[in-house]
């Protein structure tokens, strides 16, 4: 093709010369005529060549010299190499052999008032068996008669032949007990609040949460995908600051504010700090800023208030002012499962939207029956005044008497925390130290436990502590023994 260009070059030049001269002699008509004449006179091969040349130039103009994506795309072989090369991390990281949670203490037999841990009989200061219903004969008999009627499992979720008359009875009994319109039961305590929160709060909604909120609340928050705003533990000023901020935000964008639901989620008695939420102030803030309150009462249900209705009764707050109360039946009630209660308008929604309710097998009827009997006992003999005093008693004994240990929590809380007064600086060492105190007590027949947390998963990791659980079954003598045991351990081990 270079040859062609070469050949046509002189002809091309002559034409160009003509054009140039015509421009130079502008205004002279004949130059144009001459050009047309030259075109007519040119031989056919010349015109064809010219035509091809022009087409060639056009093609060169529009074609790319190289293809970008060809060099970018991986070939199959390269892909295979990459796949060959890739090495995943191991499924689980290797654990150090002395991980504190690796070997569990083994309990033989019933974990009730007298408990056999690693072969040693102890007085139980560790299980949340507040009302001592775990080995209550009446509860057992009720569970047994239910077992003889229904068997153990339900073999289905509530929707698909997993609703038993026992469940309906327990729900209405719970609603009655709490004096709310409706109650709904879950088959697992942990899943209760963790399912309830995402049933209402969706993406874009806002939840105000106490920093000390327990892990199941944290999981509920995560599942809801809402905006989470943490306020300092039990600090109503901090909460109000956040609410005010949000209020200003809402005034800027009232359209968005009209569809953004807002919730406050708190615990009644906090399991991690053993103190109580300032409910009356929360209710005031609720109406001031139009935020709904969800209250987790696993620690306080059956414990606080004259009838054991929890924090609302303790403070004398109208229970209808709380939008949703959830609690598990694994502590005071000493069976398995959890429940939510409140107004039908709120609670009924969970029957189609509570994931742990809809998609899980229902609570075994015998466990529900046990809960009903436990409620019977709680209703017949509230006895909470004396339990309240028991708790106070234990707290008084522990308070200020133990060298090197500090008691955390409200004196009337049934599950208290003993923390080190002076941390050694590393969490691991602190845990080991506390564990040695527990071992010391275990050897002297007092069962205590460390409060366990997932250190990486907790939003605000609580300080290491020993959990001390008070139950109605502990006698004055036993309490004294336990206290003196802890004092002894602390003075020996915490130099």
């Amino acid at each position, binding site marked *: 093709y270079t040859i062609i260009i070469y050949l046509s070059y002189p002809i091309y030049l002559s034409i160009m010369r003509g054009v140039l001269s015509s421009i130079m002699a502008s205004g002279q008509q004949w130059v144009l005529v001459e050009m047309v004449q030259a075109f007519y006179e040119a031989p056919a091969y010349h015109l064809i060549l010219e035509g091809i040349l022009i087409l060639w130039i056009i093609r060169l103009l529009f074609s790319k010299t190289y293809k970008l994506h060809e060099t970018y795309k991986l070939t199959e072989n390269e892909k295979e190499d990459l*796949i060959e090369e*890739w090495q*995943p*991390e191991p*499924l689980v990281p*290797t*654990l150090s052999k002395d991980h504190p*949670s690796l070997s*569990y203490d*083994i*309990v*033989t037999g*019933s*974990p009730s008032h007298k408990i056999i841990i690693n072969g040693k009989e102890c007085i139980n200061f*560790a*299980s*949340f*068996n507040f009302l001592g*219903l775990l080995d*209550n004969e009446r*509860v057992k008999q009720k569970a*047994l008669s239910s077992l003889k009627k*229904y*068997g*153990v*499992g*339900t*073999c*289905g979720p509530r929707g698909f*032949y997993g609703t*038993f008359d026992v469940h*309906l009875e327990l729900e209405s009994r719970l609603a009655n007990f709490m004096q709310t319109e409706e109650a709904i039961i879950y088959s*697992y*305590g*942990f*899943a209760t609040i963790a399912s309830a929160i995402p049933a*209402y709060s969706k993406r874009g909604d806002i939840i105000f949460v106490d920093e000390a909120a327990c*892990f199941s609340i944290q999981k509920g928050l*995560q599942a809801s995908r809402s905006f989470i705003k943490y306020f300092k533990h039990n600090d109503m000023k901090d909460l109000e600051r956040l609410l005010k901020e949000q209020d200003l935000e809402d005034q800027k964008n009232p359209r968005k504010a*009209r*569809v953004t*639901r807002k919730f406050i989620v708190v615990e009644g008695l906090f399991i991690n700090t053993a103190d109580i939420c300032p409910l009356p102030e929360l209710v005031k803030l609720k109406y001031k800023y*139009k935020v*709904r309150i969800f209250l987790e009462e696993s620690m306080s249900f059956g414990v606080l208030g004259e009838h054991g209705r929890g924090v609302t009764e303790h403070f004398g707050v109208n229970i209808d002012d709380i939008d949703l109360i959830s609690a598990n039946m*694994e502590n005071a009630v000493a069976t*398995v499962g959890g429940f939510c209660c409140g107004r*039908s*308008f709120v609670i009924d929604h969970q029957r189609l939207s509570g994931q742990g309710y809809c*998609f*899980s*097998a229902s609570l*075994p009827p*015998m466990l529900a029956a*046990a809960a009903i009997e436990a409620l019977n006992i709680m209703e017949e003999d509230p006895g909470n005044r004396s339990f309240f005093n028991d708790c106070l008693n234990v707290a008084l004994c522990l308070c200020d008497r133990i060298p090197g240990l500090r008691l955390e929590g409200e004196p009337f809380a049934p599950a208290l925390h003993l923390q080190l007064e002076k941390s050694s600086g590393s969490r691991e060492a602190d845990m080991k130290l506390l564990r040695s105190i527990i071992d010391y007590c275990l050897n002297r027949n007092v069962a205590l*436990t460390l409060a*366990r*947390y*997932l250190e990486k*998963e907790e939003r605000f990791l609580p300080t290491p502590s020993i*959990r001390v659980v008070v139950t109605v079954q502990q006698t004055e003598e036993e309490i004294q023994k336990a206290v003196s045991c802890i004092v002894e351990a602390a003075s020996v081990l915490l130099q």
Partner: protein
Amino acid sequence: MLPFTKLSQLEPRAGVTNLSETESYFKSTEFLSLKPLNPNVPHNPSLYKKPFVESFEETPLMVAVLTYMGYGILTIFGYLRDFLRQWNIEKRHIARERDEQKDFVPLYQDFENFYNRNLYIRIRDNWNRPVCSVPGPKMDLIERSTPNYNWTFEYTGRVLKDVLNLGSYNYLGFAENKGPCADAAIEATQAYGVGVGSTRCEMGNLDIHEELEQLVARFLGVESSMAFGMGFATNSMNIPALTGKGCLILSDELNHASLVLGARLSSSTIRVFKHNNMQSLEKLLRDAIVHGQPRTHRPWKKILIVVEGIYSMEGSIVRLPEIIALKKHYKAYLYLDEAHSIGALGPNGKGVVDYFGLDPKDVDIMMGTFTKSFGAAGGYIGGKKELIDYLRCHSHSAVYATSMSPPVAQQIITSMKIIMGEDGTTLGADRLRQLHENTTYFRRKLHDMGLIIYGNEDSPVIPMMLYMPAKIGAFGRQMLKKNIGIVGVGFPATPIIESRARFCVSAAHTREMLNTVNISDSWQSKYVRRLKYINETLTYYK
């Protein structure tokens, strides 16, 4: 290059030895001329030891059109009635916000509840039917009546006796109030009480739990196992312990809500592959490894494939041999949820791994529940010792949730020992055989009636297609009149036009009981167009 990528060109083919009567059909030109409509077709036949027959007949066009029309009419009426309710012409039954909180942001968005208010409520008498007996092969239901078209229910005080139970997941018939399991559970209740009052990590690790876990590990053929108090939570509280940021979860599109929740809580990236579709899975795997994480292009830390054994809405069985081959080639990890398959599948009742004759060690995380085949409650995870040790320290459930109730644990121990034959009888083997026979018999029976049934021929979960939402109500009520309790499933649990009824066969059903199920064609649900096994996906073996 792995054989999989080439397999897409393979058509199901016949020409195998030992063909039974059904299989000879597959040899026929009639079958071979059928175009496979199911997307699951490409597969690797050499990995299977026996035929893998699964059918999903395409929705007939006419039915699809009518179903959409049905939804259209329901929606129009829904809006009309909402309008009437708004102007108080029609009575409002739904609970309302209390007056003090009327000026709060509404708790529910109106359109959220449109479907429930106007479609679900109309047929909701088919769900939550209260049971007042053992959920065995026959059960007693409390009769309900409604004065206001299902807005509220009243109990008439009568009991519907001996309703045939085709709804409970009582695959091996261990939902019993008499017999060895119940006796053992009674003893456990007397010895332990029903509660535990503490977590596994603190003071709730009973000897009975340890015994259960050792037994489960032995049953599954894995090194170690851990048991949890709730099946749902086993998934949603353990997946986050296994994967995190920078990890990829490949999840089947029909995975159970608990798996979806667990994956979401783990804050890993989640990608979804088509149901049981190995091509789709392989493509995702290749792309993931080749391209790495989005934006940063760093390689993934790990890839976890999450599948179920039997899918409870489809009745399909996971293509485990192919998944294991894929996972090995691409170095991914496999999480197998055997909620429905454990106990119900396999010659020894050990789930899909047993069913396909595979090695349980090839599955990294064996998860399952005790709710179904064992007639108890809770779930387990089995696997290598390192995995279980890690979970003991890092599972949300082990650290924060109350441990399993002792009588429930005992029920599992006893029933599992019976299945394994460790009680010295063949009662377990009999149950397994009976379940298999019942499954085959009932599937064939339904099929012969001309009904479209979905799923694998060996799956005891049998979905029968109804397509139209109104038929869920009609079918459920009519069956109850004949003293048969079935489960109806519609949107959102299924695709919008694929409403279905679901039967769960149990080993406790007798032939006579199953024979009482006679589905007349009064509501025109016999849709099968061709005589036999149209549109099968069939894997042959050599």
